[in-house]
């Protein structure tokens, strides 16, 4: 390791690796954006990256060096000898654009990574700081890419048609001239596949689940958090235990019981079962929050003549509104995303939830873009809700425990 700690080794090394990362990223991004053939050349990336890293370490980090590197990358890409190779199908404009993005981003970011790297021997601190900056940059690109690509594919596929997709699976560019026709899959889902009803069903079921869960969990959580009784510790542990029983184990007897009592295939049956799956987690999250509330306020209320139930209603609940919001959001999310029970218990297309509706689209007779449009319809509301209330969500999840 200590051999690496010389500026003229560290610089070219990080430069080479960084250019591989960036040329791969830009190639993938350009391919997904235009559908044209872009690919990284690993070997040339290593070579040119090392040269650029050496240049920055030797001459210094200034605009002139950065300009030279940018120009060199654009030039080499255009003559086909650069870190990124463009196929014949790629237009000149796209090639120049890709090369420019690669050149500028590489020159700027490499200078940042190699801050404080001098040609001579480096302290361990300087060397590791540079490596960490490299890893950080790589991490941002990596995580953003793996998170975004599936969602990008989902949205773009829903706007295209089967023939276009099979012809070039990489071409996600959309023809804006089509106008509203782009959203044909969505239109068909709502008109022919009842997705409006499913959306309503899902919404209704999720909201009801939230209210029923809270109605059960608030008193329970309060009892566990505040009141002294025999078996309290055992109880709060068994909540966690229940929470670990896999749904598929319970789904089988529930399926049998619902088949025999005629509750299968009814929204009522689903509403009966969903809250029970969420009560333990809601109870656990809420009791953690209740414990953190100062008991003195409640005792003052008791002294002033309020009954316990009044204390819960007038003091504890108003104080725990943020926790109630995060628990509600979390329970809503579980109910909205629930798939297994809806899949097993609902067979009648008029009573489907969204997730069950999407599952029914998974057939060879229904085009792919419908499946993806259905997925988008199910994803967008929960995402919007989540992004709007992200603070609550993050707090709530980490305050209590969480079900996967």
């Amino acid at each position: 390791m200590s051999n690496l700690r010389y500026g003229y080794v560290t610089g070219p090394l990080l430069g080479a690796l960084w250019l591989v990362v960036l040329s791969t990223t830009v190639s993938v991004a350009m391919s997904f954006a235009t559908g044209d053939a872009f690919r990284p050349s690993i070997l040339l990336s290593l070579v040119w990256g090392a040269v650029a890293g050496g240049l920055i370490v030797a001459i210094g980090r200034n605009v002139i060096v950065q300009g030279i590197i940018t120009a060199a990358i654009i030039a080499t890409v255009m003559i086909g000898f650069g870190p990124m190779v463009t196929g014949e199908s790629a237009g000149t404009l796209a090639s120049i654009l890709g090369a420019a993005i690669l050149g500028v981003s590489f020159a700027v970011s490499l200078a940042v990574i190699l801050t404080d790297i001098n040609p001579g021997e480096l302290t361990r601190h300087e060397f590791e700081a540079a490596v960490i900056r490299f890893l950080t940059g790589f991490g941002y690109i990596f995580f953003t890419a793996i998170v975004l690509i599936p969602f990008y594919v989902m949205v773009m596929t829903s706007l295209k048609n089967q023939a276009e997709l099979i012809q070039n699976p990489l071409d996600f560019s959309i023809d804006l001239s089509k106008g509203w026709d782009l959203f044909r899959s969505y239109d068909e889902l709502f008109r022919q596949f009842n997705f409006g009803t499913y959306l309503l069903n899902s919404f209704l079921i999720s909201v009801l689940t939230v209210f029923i869960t809270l109605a059960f969990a608030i008193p329970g959580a309060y009892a566990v958090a505040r009141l002294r009784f025999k078996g309290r510790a055992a109880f709060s542990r068994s909540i966690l235990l229940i929470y670990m029983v896999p749904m598929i184990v319970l789904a089988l007897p529930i399926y049998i019981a619902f088949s025999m009592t005629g509750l299968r295939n009814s929204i009522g049956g689903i509403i009966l079962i969903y809250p029970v799956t969420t009560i333990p987690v809601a109870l656990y999250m809420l009791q953690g929050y209740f414990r953190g509330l100062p008991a003195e306020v409640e005792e003052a209320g008791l002294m002033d003549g309020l009954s316990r139930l009044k204390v819960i209603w007038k003091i504890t609940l108003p104080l725990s509104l943020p926790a109630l919001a995060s628990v509600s959001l979390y329970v809503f999310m579980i109910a909205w995303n629930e798939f297994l029970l809806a899949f097993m218990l609902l067979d009648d297309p008029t009573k489907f939830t969204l997730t069950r509706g999407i599952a029914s689209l998974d057939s060879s007779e229904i085009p792919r873009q419908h499946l993806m449009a259905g997925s988008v319809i199910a994803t967008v509301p929960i995402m919007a809700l989540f992004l709007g209330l992200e603070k609550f969500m993050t707090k709530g999840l980490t305050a209590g425990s969480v079900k996967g």
Partner: protein
Amino acid sequence: MTDLSPPRGTGPLAKREARLAWGLLSPTLIAVALVVVLPLLAIFWISVKPVSLADLRPPEVVLREDLRGDAEAVGDEANIRYRLRNSSQEQPIGGVSFTDVIPEGLTVGTLDERCTLDGQALSCDLGDWEPGYRENLMIPVTIGQAYLDGGIEPGDSDAAVEGKASNVLTNSTFTFDNFARVFDGAEFWGVLGVTMFYTVFGTIGALLFGLFAALLLNKEFRGQGILRGLYLFPYVAPVIAVAFAWVLLFDPFSGSANALLVQMGVTSEAINFFGERPLALIMVTVFEIWRYFPLSFLFILARMQSIDTDMYEAADMDGASPFQQFWALSVPQLLGILSVLFLLRFIWTFNKFDDIFLLTGGNAGTRTLTVNVYEQAFAVSNIGAGAAVAVVIFCCLLLFSVFFFKFISQEEGL
């Protein structure tokens, strides 16, 4: 004489508090007992019963009723016909009987000897039936004026049917075939091996990626909130949506991932990511890591932000390098949350069903224990065998939770 010892036992106040506590808890307790404890007991019961999917509909007496013959004028002769059958081809029904009300204005002629008439109420006792038994029962009647005026057909009043069928779910037939089948041969060990691979690597992977992501976001910068929200997407989106997006992305014929790999020269022909052994198992594990790293990331980040920064400043002054600080300061601080997360995620990954079910349906060497429950119960229609697998899962779970509670008591509050 004053007693100075502290009061013993539970006083009235404490009793009242305990009563209130149980009162507040009872709705939850009842609901959980009904939907968790009862099904768990049922699973143990079913696992030793020879039940198949078809047995869920118990045999019953099917009865149809209509009026045969002319019923135009007073004095016409007609027959009320009862068509009866046993719905099951396999099981007998014992003590079949039914009662029905004959509409006003119909005079019953000679009765079948098994039937009796009390006013207008007809009751027939038809004895025991073989599987698949059918019978047509004719009740001759004479039409009266009241019938023509009333307009009530014989079929308008529903006949009440009774009959006892032995239900395989409640009778005393027991079998260990289900367990024998589950543990039979190499298949079970294959399934267990797949489950362990998926669970261990899925858990460790999600933890490591979560740790990496948390390290990235453990600093203040513009857009940190946006990135944090973005990195939670896989966890928040409905599993069915993201699973299908993955299936589409990695499709061997029209998948973008394959097109990209071919174009980059990594592979010359399309790879069937979700259809080949052992690639399919690796892919579902990768999906699991992708979907659940946000959760680990969130918990680890929350823990990181509560670590005192003074410590790092002191280490900096003493000349510790960033990696040294990470190993010597951060890792020990995070060990508690990491071990709790490991246990939690281990158990939940072990329990995971939807992901694999949606991605591969348990094909191509990806059948885990949970998928096996579904497979046995619904694909093979052997509910008993499915329940037996569920019992095996439950026993593993009990084993894990012993470990879990040993650890969580040290790291209470998560």
